[in-house]
């Protein structure tokens, strides 16, 4: 006997990133609750999904209840690019239920909804805001109104399911109201919230429940722009297929540095380059990019501390024209300076560029800028954020070079309030030392996983054509103190 079972079709949400979070998209004919505080983006989210899916053959009914006047809602929502006025009202029809809702008669509300659904036979229905129906939320288990509302929700769900409708109920619910009957009946619950910390506000989405699907757990940040909502899913490293290491060494582009690093950077490694302000971190990173481009590789550079124009102007020291490389889709420079960034948003930006141009080298310049760009709520979890960022990037096989500014002295090697070296394969440290009254720049390889490397300090110069490694300072003592002294020669015999 064949095991016959119903197949639930996935509907695309039309919201970037949300399908992945939902475990593949919206379940067709599902009864969905979109909950959150006023201003959290519920209306925008649902209208974006409905405009994306509604067609002349699969019409949408959008019921507005007590709350924001429909005209005002339309006035604001049509500012979004997804709002297709050509679909109104033939494909996307707005119906006002305020009269029925104000009567307090749930039966009248249900009759009107069912009447309109029967008349239109829509594929999608939204009720905005569901919270206002029935005069609010009953409070106690034995409250008579609670039973009435439960019965209303049950009948509504049955009606909409029978008409093969994918429905969305929008409501201003608080966490403590999760005993409301609609939470029980809903097939999926999307909770929108906003984390406010100091001057920062970060929007977050959580899928609290999806029947028949395995949604992505946790809180996912989202932004609302002129194109509507975009969700940035958390990307656990274990969900990604890792690309095997090749054992190949990448040339750094800094004369003399490959030799110090035992032949170059192992492909697929994560390299951390730390140093004080002005030590040449960006110069090294720029040469790393230029070297890759000269060998027909493609590169992505994420800049946090300067505008792309400034970055490109500074990159004129290398013999390759970065602007031409950008035009040829061999280089992408991502500007990620906005505040209140989430690590997932940054990942999404970098991944999009890596995929678009097939990048093999990624530069993050700098981690210090990245940390500042993050919303405070993510700075607290910077180690975790960085771990996910690096894990997700290296799983794709790209080689990552990150710069970080050192505030404290060399022995600690600290560049943030947290120690983050555990995420790296290789660490290069730059610093200043005073030798014979001159400030000299030196570099040392602190760590290279599974690879031989030079252990002595090497001087380097920043010239008009870039960084060049110099002599070994093996003859000096006390380099880590910043004021080294020439070691006395030990004579034989």
């Amino acid at each position, binding site marked *: 006997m064949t095991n016959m079972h119903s197949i639930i079709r996935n509907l695309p949400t039309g919201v970037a990133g949300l399908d992945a979070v939902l475990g593949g998209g919206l379940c067709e004919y599902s009864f969905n609750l979109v909950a959150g505080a006023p201003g959290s983006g519920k209306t925008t989210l649902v209208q974006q999904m409905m405009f994306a899916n509604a067609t002349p*053959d*699969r019409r949408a009914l959008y019921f507005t209840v007590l709350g924001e006047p429909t*005209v005002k809602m339309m006035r604001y929502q049509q500012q979004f690019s997804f709002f297709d006025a*050509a679909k*109104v*009202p033939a494909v996307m029809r707005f119906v*006002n239920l305020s009269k029925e809702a104000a009567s307090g008669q749930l039966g009248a509300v249900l009759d009107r909804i069912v009447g309109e659904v029967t008349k239109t036979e829509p594929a999608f229905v939204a009720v905005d805001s569901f919270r206002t129906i029935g005069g609010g939320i009953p409070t106690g288990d034995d409250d008579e109104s609670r039973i009435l509302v439960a019965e209303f929700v049950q009948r509504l769900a049955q009606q909409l399911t029978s008409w093969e409708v994918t429905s969305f109920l929008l409501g201003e619910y608080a966490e403590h109201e999760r005993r409301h009957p609609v939470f029980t009946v809903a097939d999926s619950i999307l909770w929108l919230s906003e984390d406010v910390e100091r001057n920062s506000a970060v929007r977050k989405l959580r899928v609290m429940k999806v029947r028949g699907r395995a949604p992505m757990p946790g809180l996912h940040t989202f932004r609302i722009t002129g194109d509507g909502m975009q969700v940035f899913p958390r990307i656990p490293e274990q969900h990604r297929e890792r690309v095997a290491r090749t054992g190949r060494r990448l040339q750094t582009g800094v004369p003399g540095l490959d030799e110090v690093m035992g032949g170059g950077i192992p492909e697929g490694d994560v390299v951390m380059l730390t140093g004080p302000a002005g030590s040449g971190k960006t110069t090294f990173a720029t040469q790393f990019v230029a070297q890759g481009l000269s060998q027909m590789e493609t590169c992505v550079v994420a800049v946090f501390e300067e505008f792309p124009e400034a970055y490109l102007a500074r990159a004129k020291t290398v013999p390759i024209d970065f602007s031409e490389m950008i035009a040829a889709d061999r280089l992408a420079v991502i500007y990620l300076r906005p505040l209140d960034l989430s690590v997932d948003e940054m990942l999404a930006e970098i991944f999009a560029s890596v995929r678009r141009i097939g990048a093999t080298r990624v530069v993050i310049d700098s981690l210090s800028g990245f940390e500042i760009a993050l919303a405070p709520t993510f700075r607290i979890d910077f180690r975790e954020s960085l771990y996910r960022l690096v894990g997700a990037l290296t799983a794709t096989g790209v080689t990552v070079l990150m710069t970080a500014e050192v505030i404290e002295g060399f022995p600690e090697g600290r560049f943030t309030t947290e120690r983050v070296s555990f995420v790296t394969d290789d660490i290069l440290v730059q610093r200043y030392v005073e030798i014979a009254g001159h400030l000299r720049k030196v570099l040392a390889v602190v760590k290279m996983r599974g690879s031989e490397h030079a252990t002595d300090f090497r001087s380097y110069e920043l010239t008009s054509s870039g960084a060049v490694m110099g002599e070994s300072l093996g003859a000096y003592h006390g380099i880590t103190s910043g004021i080294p002294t020439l070691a006395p020669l030990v004579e034989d015999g």
Partner: protein
Amino acid sequence: MLGAALQVTCSRMCDNLREFMGVDGCSALLDRAIKRTEDRHPVWREIRRRDRDGVHLDGIAASVELHGIAAVSAAVSALLAALFDVLARLIGEDLALRLMELEAPPTDTGGGEPAS
């Protein structure tokens, strides 16, 4: 006959507006549009009727018998123009035109077969 046609036209438009704006929203819009036109078209003072369900324009046909088709037609035209003007400034001309369209909302199921 023409009076009846004008009546149907206005009633359908009011139904459309009432459907998406609700009784209060539609009444507010009608009140404002009539206020802008009634000085030059005093027939609106007779046509407009208000009850617990808001503003109604169901006296158009009767008004034609009293004031003549020319006066009532001009009044209806002025009202439509005023309604469109107000609505267009709120939600844009494209959407205002679509929402004021004088056809009744779809009631047939011809183009709307639910997906299986």
